[in-house]
């Protein structure tokens, strides 16, 4: 039995995982990262548009700060997020951007003077301050009050991932590539590591660590059409779920991105709309102002996706062999802009559609994009049920996104979350010793060995690829953008049937090493359990919040549903998760639930909202007029951070007077 020991074990080598590994190694801890693929191939590389951080360098970002970023994030989440976490995040985002500049990211920079931009389909001239010349630029993104999304052309994720992985290489952090973690080693209270399989040799290994951090990304591939890389299959969430102890949070919160190309579902960045691109219907009509006169194309993602679906349901979609779609028009931005700032988009259009987006419209439709749900953690990134199990990035429900994530907040979460949680992981490793119970390790190992043996020698008859596709279609058809009780019931019933069938998978390829069919056979039942947490959670939540839109319950019901769904898997033979709920405490919120700014305000108010608003008014009155925004914030909702991350962020407006400057 091969056992590898370390201090800080990280599963997943995307931005979040690598950032945690770096934080561990910085403290002198032995660190090992496991990855399905080479680190630089991680799905983090696909983030095109950028990351939000309230630097406030550009003229369109003047006046931006942590408070505004926090408010945008909470409203974006439809009040489903953890406000402490949103505060920690907004405070550290500028630090992460600046740290990344020091690690080599060539952030797009501001050129002083006049430049032309497209705002609301019109060319406008903006003038950047002399003092801002050479500082980090930001572009507009949906759901934000200020231009806050820092970027490198439209390859921000690529640029960040390469810088962070280079840093990890410099620090000599080993990444064990082509290794798949398949179960957690735990005693019901404390996590000790993982059992993992080498995808080349088939060897099973136990990796033992003081802390185990899961940073495996989202679960988009339980859907048939997704913008996610094909490795985003939810196995990290399944690892936690299969302990029967650790909980997953808000699994039904699944975001659809408005502009993925048809039919393959590859994303074109929100930066297209942020930079001035428009959505058009089959008549060439720009329809978003009809639905959202204020925010138009730059309404929150879940809102735009639903409006597009609504519009297509009215027969305004463009017919295609793959069903109706709409058009994304970026021709008005001009060829130069498309070929520099939206270059990936141009390549995608050329290679997959054979069109030139500087002169042709792009066929798009809303497509599964992001998993707000994940492994439930507390504010320090640790599972409340399983000590030593941490999770970060899209794999986690930390939970700064609530029921809808803002564009530019996912890439930001990977590096900001990694920065914060990395320090807590390192603290944990320093305070705890390695606990080794070889009996427990052996038991976990033989269980996994048994599962593999059963698949290889068993007499099963089910085809794993067929089961997988059936699951993906059920999720697409019945657990999509608009949901209702009838369809969700159907999804649950059919997924349970598939889970039963998955116990009888038969393999044609009997190789113990490098066997793609065996890899699928190990994944699919795990994916089905994850899919059931999504479908069951969605079926139970009889309200609409953020990306979770129930046609039969259109109201956001703060009175009954201002809570987080928790799922656990009762036992191996169970066919559905056990759901419970964690209440969000309005009396502790800095920003009590209110109107989100889209459509009719149809929310059913929480009884505590008025009381909390009055309490906040009292706190502010007591502080008096001399209090600054930091004093007010601290009085309303104090939050904690590792000490080295507490200092305030300096901004251009703190150092010079920039107003009125040319």
């Amino acid at each position: 039995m091969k056992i590898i020991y370390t201090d800080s074990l990280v599963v997943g080598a995307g931005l979040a995982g690598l950032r945690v590994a770096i934080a561990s190694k910085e403290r002198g801890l032995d660190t090992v990262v496991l990855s399905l693929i080479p680190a630089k191939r991680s799905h983090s590389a696909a983030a095109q548009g950028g990351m939000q951080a309230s630097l406030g360098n550009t003229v369109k970002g003047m006046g931006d700060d942590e408070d505004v970023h926090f408010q945008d994030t909470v409203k974006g989440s439809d009040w489903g997020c953890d406000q402490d976490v949103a505060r920690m995040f907004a405070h550290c985002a500028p630090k992460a951007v600046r740290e990344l500049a020091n690690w080599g990211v060539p952030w797009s920079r501001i050129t002083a003077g006049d430049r032309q931009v497209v705002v609301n389909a019109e060319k406008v001239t903006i003038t950047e301050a002399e003092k801002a010349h050479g500082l980090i630029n930001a572009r507009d993104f949906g759901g934000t009050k200020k231009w806050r999304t820092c970027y490198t052309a439209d390859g921000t994720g690529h640029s960040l991932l390469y810088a962070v992985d280079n840093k990890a290489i410099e620090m000599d952090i080993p990444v064990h590539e082509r290794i798949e973690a398949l179960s957690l080693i735990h005693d019901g209270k404390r996590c000790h590591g993982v059992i993992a399989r080498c995808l080349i040799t088939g060897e099973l290994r136990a990796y033992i660590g003081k802390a185990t951090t899961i940073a495996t990304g989202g679960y988009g591939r339980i859907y048939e059409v997704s913008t996610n890389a094909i490795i985003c299959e939810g196995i990290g969430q399944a690892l936690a779920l299969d302990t029967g102890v650790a909980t997953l949070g808000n699994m039904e919160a699944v975001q659809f991105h408005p502009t993925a190309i048809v039919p393959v579902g590859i994303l074109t960045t929100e930066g297209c709309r942020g930079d001035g691109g428009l959505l058009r219907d089959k008549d060439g009509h720009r329809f978003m102002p009809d639905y959202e006169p204020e925010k138009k194309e730059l309404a929150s993602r879940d809102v735009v996706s639903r409006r597009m679906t609504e519009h297509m349901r009215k027969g305004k979609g463009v017919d295609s062999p793959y069903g109706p779609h709409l058009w994304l028009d970026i021709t008005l931005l001009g060829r130069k802009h498309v070929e520099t700032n939206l270059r990936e988009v141009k390549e995608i259009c050329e290679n997959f559609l054979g069109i030139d987006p500087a002169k042709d419209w792009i066929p798009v439709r809303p497509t599964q994009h992001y998993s707000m749900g994940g492994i439930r953690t507390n504010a320090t990134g640790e599972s409340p049920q399983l000590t030593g199990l941490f999770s970060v990035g899209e794999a986690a429900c930390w939970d700064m996104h609530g029921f809808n994530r803002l564009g530019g907040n996912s890439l930001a979460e990977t590096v900001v979350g990694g920065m914060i949680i990395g320090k807590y992981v390192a603290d944990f490793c320093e305070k705890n010793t390695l606990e080794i119970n070889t009996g427990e390790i052996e038991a976990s190992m033989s269980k996994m060995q048994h599962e593999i043996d059963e698949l290889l020698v068993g007499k099963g008859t089910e085809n794993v690829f067929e089961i997988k596709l059936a699951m993906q279609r059920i999720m697409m058809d019945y657990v999509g953008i608009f949901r209702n009780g009838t369809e969700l019931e159907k999804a649950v019933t059919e997924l349970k049937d598939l889970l039963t069938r998955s116990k009888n998978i038969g393999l044609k390829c009997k190789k113990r090493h490098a066997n793609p069919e065996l890899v699928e056979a190990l994944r699919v039942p795990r994916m089905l359990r994850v899919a059931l947490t999504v479908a069951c959670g969605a079926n139970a939540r009889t309200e609409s919040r953020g990306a979770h839109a129930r046609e039969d319950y259109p109201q956001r019901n703060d009175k009954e549903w201002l809570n987080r769904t928790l799922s656990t898997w009762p036992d191996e033979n169970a066919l559905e998760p056990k759901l419970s709920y964690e209440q969000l405490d309005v009396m502790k919120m800095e920003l009590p639930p209110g109107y989100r700014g889209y459509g009719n305000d149809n929310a059913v108010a929480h009884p505590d909202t008025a009381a909390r608003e009055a309490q906040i008014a009292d706190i502010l009155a007591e502080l008096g007029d001399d209090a600054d925004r930091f004093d007010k914030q601290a009085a309303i909702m104090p939050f904690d951070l590792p000490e080295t991350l507490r200092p305030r962020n300096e901004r251009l407006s703190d150092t010079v007077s920039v107003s009125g400057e040319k």
Partner: protein
Amino acid sequence: MSSPRTISFEIFRYDPQDPNDKPKMVTYEITEAPGMTVFIALNLLREQQDPSLQFDFVCRAGICGSCAMVINGKPTLACRTLTANFPDGKIKLMPLPGFELIGDLSVNTGKFMRELAERLQLWLQPDSNDIDIHRLENPMDPAEAAKLYELERCVECGVCVSACATKQMKDTFVGAVGMMKIARFEMDSRDTRTAEDFYHVIGNQDGVFGCMTLLGCQDACPKDLPHMQQIAYLRRKMAQTIVSC
């Protein structure tokens, strides 16, 4: 409308871990669908005809670089190669040469790239790591930032390595990918290494002076990176270093 055509895939098959296996070419047939890419076709072949078929895809969108393979003689990204590009409907797939073979079409580019990065120290080496992240960042020339990003667009797919005759003959040659990255850090005003420092790494037959300028790297690069320009730039820099000594 004419009925969809049948296309044939002739695929290299070999499992280096199986002592009894020998390399061979196996032909598969599949019905073409509109917009079909080699990614879609290979997945269908694996799901419907041969579940043991090994190949690598991650992003399937031309972003991650994992799926490079030799398609009808040319190294390129399989995910964004449309089957419609081949009028005779015959597609021959081979693994990228120059890398450790994992099996069939899958090669270990990750191991290669990590070793290259360690050997050439391909990370930013600033004056000091002690920069205050709570304060305003250092300004940078906007044109320089844009230029660095242009060179940074490499996805480490390995196509340039496979398309390089020098690399095929000389295993220690750093290849276009190594030089592109060196050029990226050489041009970065934040990096304190001098041309002399880089000379020690690539001012030899394993580096700029080993390149035969056949430019397979530039012709095949799926990201259209300006390899020719960078190699010429580095040569000039390295030559100047010798002259100035």
